[in-house]
């Protein structure tokens, strides 16, 4: 049989198959170390597209200690609509010590409870990875990106084959260096933004539509 015909038939079957099994919406998880601005980003996306918020933002690490899901967020870019579920996850850390919370004026009991919940939060965040279709990995541009947490998460997301966008957040701060993040993870798309100030946020939406749409 003609090889060209077989190839075109194969391509047609593949597109029909894709059409049948195409997900109508993507589940996107927002990941990163504590205090990278995950909730600020989640709130920014929700404020922009739903007028809502997902959780409280704080300078105290591990403010988000349970994963939070918001379904059916519609993002419109250049006439195309991307519908996503957003999961804001607790910050991933290798060490959690209640002493770190004491300086924020918490009682020892409260700090210990926070540490325990934060630890449970890390486990919950990691478990969510099994149920996601894409990841927004938020990093603080003012910090060294070469951390065990960042490198391990990127490696694992690559191994899972999940689409990944790295967000270089906090570019509004004077010592921010998104280039350092790009240099650390050159194989991935890095989008520099300020979730707090809304800087370059349109580029993020466009890149999300390309990557996850």
């Amino acid at each position, binding site marked *: 049989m003609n090889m060209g015909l077989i190839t075109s038939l194969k391509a047609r079957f593949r597109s029909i198959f894709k059409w049948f099994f195409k997900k109508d919406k993507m589940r996107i998880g927002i990941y990163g170390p504590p205090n990278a601005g995950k909730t600020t980003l989640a709130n920014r996306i929700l404020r922009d597209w739903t007028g809502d918020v997902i959780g409280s933002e704080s300078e105290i690490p591990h403010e988000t200690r349970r994963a939070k899901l918001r379904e059916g967020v519609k993002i419109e870019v250049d006439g195309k609509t991307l519908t996503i579920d957003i999961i804001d996850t607790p910050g*991933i*850390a*290798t*060490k*959690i*010590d*209640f*002493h770190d919370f004491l300086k924020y004026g918490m009682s*020892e009991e409260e*700090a*210990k409870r926070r*540490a*325990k919940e934060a*630890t449970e939060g*890390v*486990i919950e965040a*990691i*478990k*969510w*990875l*099994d*149920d996601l279709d894409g990841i927004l990995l938020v990093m603080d541009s003012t910090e060294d990106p070469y951390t*065990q*947490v960042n490198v*391990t*998460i990127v490696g*694992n997301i690559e191994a899972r084959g999940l689409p990944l966008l790295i967000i270089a957040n906090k570019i509004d701060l004077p010592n921010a260096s998104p280039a350092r993040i790009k240099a650390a993870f050159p194989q991935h798309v890095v989008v520099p933004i300020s979730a707090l100030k809304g800087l370059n946020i349109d580029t993020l939406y466009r890149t999300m539509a390309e990557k996850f749409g």
Partner: protein
Amino acid sequence: MPHRCTECGKEYMDGDMAILQGCECGNNKFLYIPKQKGREVEEIKEQFERIESVRIIAPGMYELNIEKLLEGGEVVIALQEDGKYAVHLPSLLRKKKRS
């Protein structure tokens, strides 16, 4: 670490005056013990071979083994350093993904 008295076995650190003046026991011969190169490798190896995903150092102080957690499967909790472990059965038995 590495200067051991050949008589009584007492060890002196590098640069200790006792190495020049002699050991407490009166002996002035010491055996130099080279640094164990294997030790660091062992420590790293041990870290990778740790079975627990969470180590509770003290109440409110936790050490998380992110690699282990990301590998999936069960959550094993090590209680301080005394060799006690707790296995979180629901995570071990979880077969189906969250829908």
